[in-house]
């Protein structure tokens, strides 16, 4: 597969980190909705927000192997923070985004001390428990959060003081896409940094890491905090662009949804989550007439099908198919070894 024609250790590593044509094509394609489907820009903004949230989960689950069944907690804190400052008179979107990201980041940092200590079943329980705890707390603190009815009266000011959030989602999609792209570039940088390599080490064999001198807990705390910030940004985008926040921003269902998107697309591949988000959100929109209960019937079947037959998601499946095609093509003509 990899022929050792390149000399020295650096070329291969550099090739891995380089932007590929397919990537550039992907990001150019994200601009297509503006021209091809201007009626769907609201949906497109929801997809971008979901993709940002999935990206956050991919950093901890896909790249670091840290399971979370309660990732909506950070999304929800970001959403409520952005909503609350708007309700209390400050609707400037960019500063709201920063404040929301900071709030969820603080929660992420605090909880990361717990997360880093556990693995396996205990971790599943703890993330699930933290998520539910936060949701119940938000419900109980209805004086602050509006409880079951959600926050009323969110108003987002124009972007840069000039560009209004229009009904067609033009601004919303531009805004969400821009944030997604900036965060994506940052996440990509993290993945290709020494720290990103350490994260992959934790995912591959966390028990071995201390034996090469790695401060595993500290690494986990860092990435968990970063992921919490990103989840908070996604939540903030949602409340700013839809002018609503309700308890379901924090719910188990949302934690499960984001997990489904990531698994569907393929975890640990950066683009897997994005593709999963697109497929999931578009399908959901197509079947929006369907009672949510029956929607989850199909999601359930999908989950079962994916773990049984497509364990690395759509992207993993594609990569596998491409690999097969390539090796089949290589076998056909009797090549002399290069």
């Amino acid at each position: 597969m990899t022929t050792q024609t390149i000399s020295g250790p650096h070329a291969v590593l550099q090739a891995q980190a380089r932007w590929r044509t397919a990537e550039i094509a992907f990001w150019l394609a994200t601009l297509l909705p503006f021209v091809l489907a201007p009626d769907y820009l609201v949906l497109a903004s929801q997809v971008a927000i979901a993709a940002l949230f999935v990206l956050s989960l991919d950093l901890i689950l896909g790249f670091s192997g840290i399971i979370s069944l309660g990732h909506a907690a950070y999304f929800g804190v970001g959403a409520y923070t952005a909503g609350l400052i708007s309700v209390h008179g400050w609707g400037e979107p960019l500063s709201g985004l920063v404040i929301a990201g900071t709030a969820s980041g603080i929660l992420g940092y605090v909880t990361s001390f717990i997360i880093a200590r556990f693995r396996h079943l205990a971790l599943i329980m703890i993330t699930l428990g933290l998520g539910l705890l936060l949701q119940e707390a938000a419900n109980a603190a209805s004086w602050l959060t509006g409880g079951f009815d959600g926050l009323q009266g969110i108003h987002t000011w124009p972007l840069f003081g000039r560009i209004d959030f229009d009904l067609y989602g033009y601004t919303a999609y531009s805004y969400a896409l821009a944030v997604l792209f900036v965060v994506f570039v940052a996440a990509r940088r993290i993945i290709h940094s020494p720290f990103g390599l350490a994260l992959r080490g934790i995912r591959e064999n966390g028990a071995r890491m201390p034996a090469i001198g790695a401060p595993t807990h500290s690494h986990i705390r860092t990435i968990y905090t970063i992921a919490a910030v990103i989840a908070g940004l996604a939540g903030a985008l949602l409340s700013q662009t839809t002018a609503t926040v309700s308890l379901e921003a924090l719910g188990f269902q949302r934690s499960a949804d984001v997990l489904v998107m990531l698994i569907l697309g393929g975890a640990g591949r950066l683009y897997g989550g994005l593709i999963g988000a697109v497929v999931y959100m578009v399908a959901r929109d197509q079947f929006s007439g369907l009672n949510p209960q029956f929607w989850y019937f199909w999601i359930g079947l999908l989950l079962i099908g994916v773990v049984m037959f497509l364990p690395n998601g759509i992207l993993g499946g594609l990569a596998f198919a491409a690999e097969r095609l390539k090796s089949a093509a290589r076998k056909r003509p009797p090549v002399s070894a290069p």
Partner: protein
Amino acid sequence: MSATAARMTALSTRGVNKRFGSLVVAADVEIDLPAGVRYALIGPNGAGKTTLINLMTGMLRPDAGHILLGDDDITALPPQARVRRGLVRTYQINSLFPYLSALESVTLAVCERRGVARTWWRPLTAYRDEVDEAYGILGTLNLAAVCHRPTRELAYGQQRLLEIALALAARPKVLLLDEPAAGVPRDESNDLFAAIAGLSRDITVLFIEHDMELVFRFASRVIVMVGGGVLTEGTPAEIAADERVRAVYLGERQRVGAR
């Protein structure tokens, strides 16, 4: 003992005890490893050799006793802190990073040692020195040609070498090798030990090995463990002549000296 006492002691244990339930796996273990010496640790299966390495490196906490690295008491330090001070181990059963390439694995270890593994804003490719160092280590172990292959695709013998490469990347002062040649065919294990023998004399090496021929060839001193306790210690020749050691290895149930 008097000959070695003059030399600096690299690693020592003081009255180390450990039990799993009612099973005693370390009984008042007192070991001194003089700097630069090649030590072999032998003993029947289940004697507690691996457990002793786990205790020395902090993977397990002793019930009683102390571990000293040089003059420092490191008993309370977590494993990664001991590694950073130069106490490094390998595993009897491969414990590697299946989907990282050999180069990535060793580069990771180098980055951790140099304290750059926390930086997430600069690309890995900017750390040319680290990559070069890792590549160099792989080269000394004949792994350079396969350094871009994912670990899981490497041959078993190459994976055993990668275990050692990971340890070397941490620049050990004391290197504890847990059956480095376990499962490796005879001819390959010779090469493997030749590589170990070629290590700098600044590194103190303790290796566990069952093959007496390899022990005699590559160790200057031998420690024998039985039932969690140190039965005896001496030069290979002394150990070979020791009746008690023979008794243990001939499977006789003479637990001499153990209790």
